[in-house]
């Protein structure tokens, strides 16, 4: 069996997968990515390179992914619909595939008003579900969105999407996952899990519809580094759910970072045994150096 990417291979072989996020720098120094990548080598099966996350301008996901690819590490190129229309997005999919990038995560993207260029005009020509479907059709049918035919090689990519079990309204979130699968999602990375109970309930619904057999679900893990971060996640970041018990543990800890680390470890242990969860996706915001020990302490072997 030939696989499009290492990520697809390890997921298909039934291994519990780890992905980790690398945020590109606010500058053009490739070594900033290389240093982070070297630090994380062996910790994860593939690495997400974010696409101007929270609408803050950084090195492009395409370039960051390529830097990683040249280090023989596997990137997951994130693509948002905020900054490019369907022409730009399809063109970059062809370019990325031509240069050997094999995983794409399709997102609608954070609104520009949250970032460092709030006066920018958001594109939002299409949404994440339409992007998934467009790339799937380019790959499987050989047509662009307009119906025009691809003439030289189809992009051989493994497609992912995000899911948020904590989004409002809860009752439609499994349908939303189904829709992403129908559109072309083969793996899913979820919003960071702090409320395990609610996540388990969502997974129950996912399993009851058999969706865990149709898509690989990687549960999001983001260690809380400080009381400030816990408060930001709890009160200000839309679509996150930090339960009061977790918040109190961080707030009352003599060393909040250490407590955040312990909570992340406990969460990973629970997620590891949760039926239908095929891996974890670690997003350690401004705390990437914690990932190697977190992975080791959670009992995972070094990745090849």
């Amino acid at each position, binding site marked *: 069996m030939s696989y499009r990417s290492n990520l697809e291979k390890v997921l298909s072989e039934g291994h519990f997968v780890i992905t980790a996020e690398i945020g590109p720098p606010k500058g053009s120094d490739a070594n900033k990515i290389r240093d982070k990548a070297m630090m994380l080598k062996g910790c994860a099966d593939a690495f997400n390179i974010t696409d101007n996350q929270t609408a803050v301008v950084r090195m492009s996901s395409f370039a960051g992914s390529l830097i990683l690819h040249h280090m023989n590490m596997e990137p997951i190129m994130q693509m948002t619909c905020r900054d490019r229309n369907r022409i730009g997005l399809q063109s970059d999919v062809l370019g990325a595939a031509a240069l050997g990038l094999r995983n794409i995560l399709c997102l609608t993207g954070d609104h520009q008003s949250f970032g460092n260029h709030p006066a920018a005009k*958001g594109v939002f*020509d299409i949404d994440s579900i339409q992007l998934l479907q467009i790339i799937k059709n380019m790959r499987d049918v050989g047509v662009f969105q307009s119906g025009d035919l691809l003439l030289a090689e189809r992009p051989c990519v493994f497609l992912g999407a995000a899911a948020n079990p904590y989004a*409002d*309204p809860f009752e439609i979130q499994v349908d939303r996952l189904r829709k992403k699968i*129908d559109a072309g999602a083969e793996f899913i990375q979820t919003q960071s899990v702090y409320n395990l109970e609610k996540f388990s309930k969502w997974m129950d619904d996912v399993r009851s519809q058999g969706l865990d057999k149709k898509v690989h679900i990687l549960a999001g893990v983001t260690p809380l580094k400080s009381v400030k971060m816990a408060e930001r996640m709890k009160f200000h970041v839309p*679509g996150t759910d930090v339960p009061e018990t977790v918040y109190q543990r961080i707030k009352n800890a003599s060393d909040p970072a250490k407590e955040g680390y312990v909570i992340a470890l406990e969460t990973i242990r629970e997620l590891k045994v949760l039926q239908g969860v095929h891996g974890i996706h670690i997003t350690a915001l401004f705390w990437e150096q914690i990932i190697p020990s977190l992975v080791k302490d959670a009992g995972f072997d070094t990745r090849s």
Partner: protein
Amino acid sequence: MIITKQKDIIELLRSIDSKPVFLIGCNECATLCHTGGKDEVLALKEALVKKQIPVSGWVVLEPACHLLNDKRMLKEYTTELSKTEKVLVLACGNGIQTIADLLSEKEIIAGTDTLFLGEISRANEFDKRCMLCGDCLLDNFEGFCPITRCPKSMLNGPCGGSSNGNCEINKEMECVWDCVIQKLKKKGKLDVLLAIQKPKDWSKASETKWRI
């Protein structure tokens, strides 16, 4: 209705620069928005006179976006218009351009910012409803327009950032997807959301002329 808001008086004074000015209002949308009706034109006139800025005359057009009506009505103000190089228009962006077209010798000052096509939801409160895309999709969304009312124009929403039915971008704005979902839920038709909405045909939005 075209919703406008008046520009700040300080900004207008800077544009007028103490020269004589002729004022134009509009009897339709700008009147209902209280930005360019008779009352507002007269109030601005008074404010300008207080600042020693001569106002050579004023008129409320019926409406400002009607080229032929404007031509006819403005003829009656030839004398007043001849006394000034500057014409300040309290109408929507369309009305201002129609006047600029007719009075090509004059310096046109836009007295308003044109915000959106929307409804009067209560007295002095307006809500955006349509962005004139040329290809109405309201049938697909229970009569709510996500292209206009979702900041990300998502046709396969919601994005996941809303809370308690409010948009993550602006807590004063209801999440249009929440509106769609609540209506579908009442009808027991939530499953229609499973249909993937195709990318929108924006070519229809580029119409620039229409004849009946």
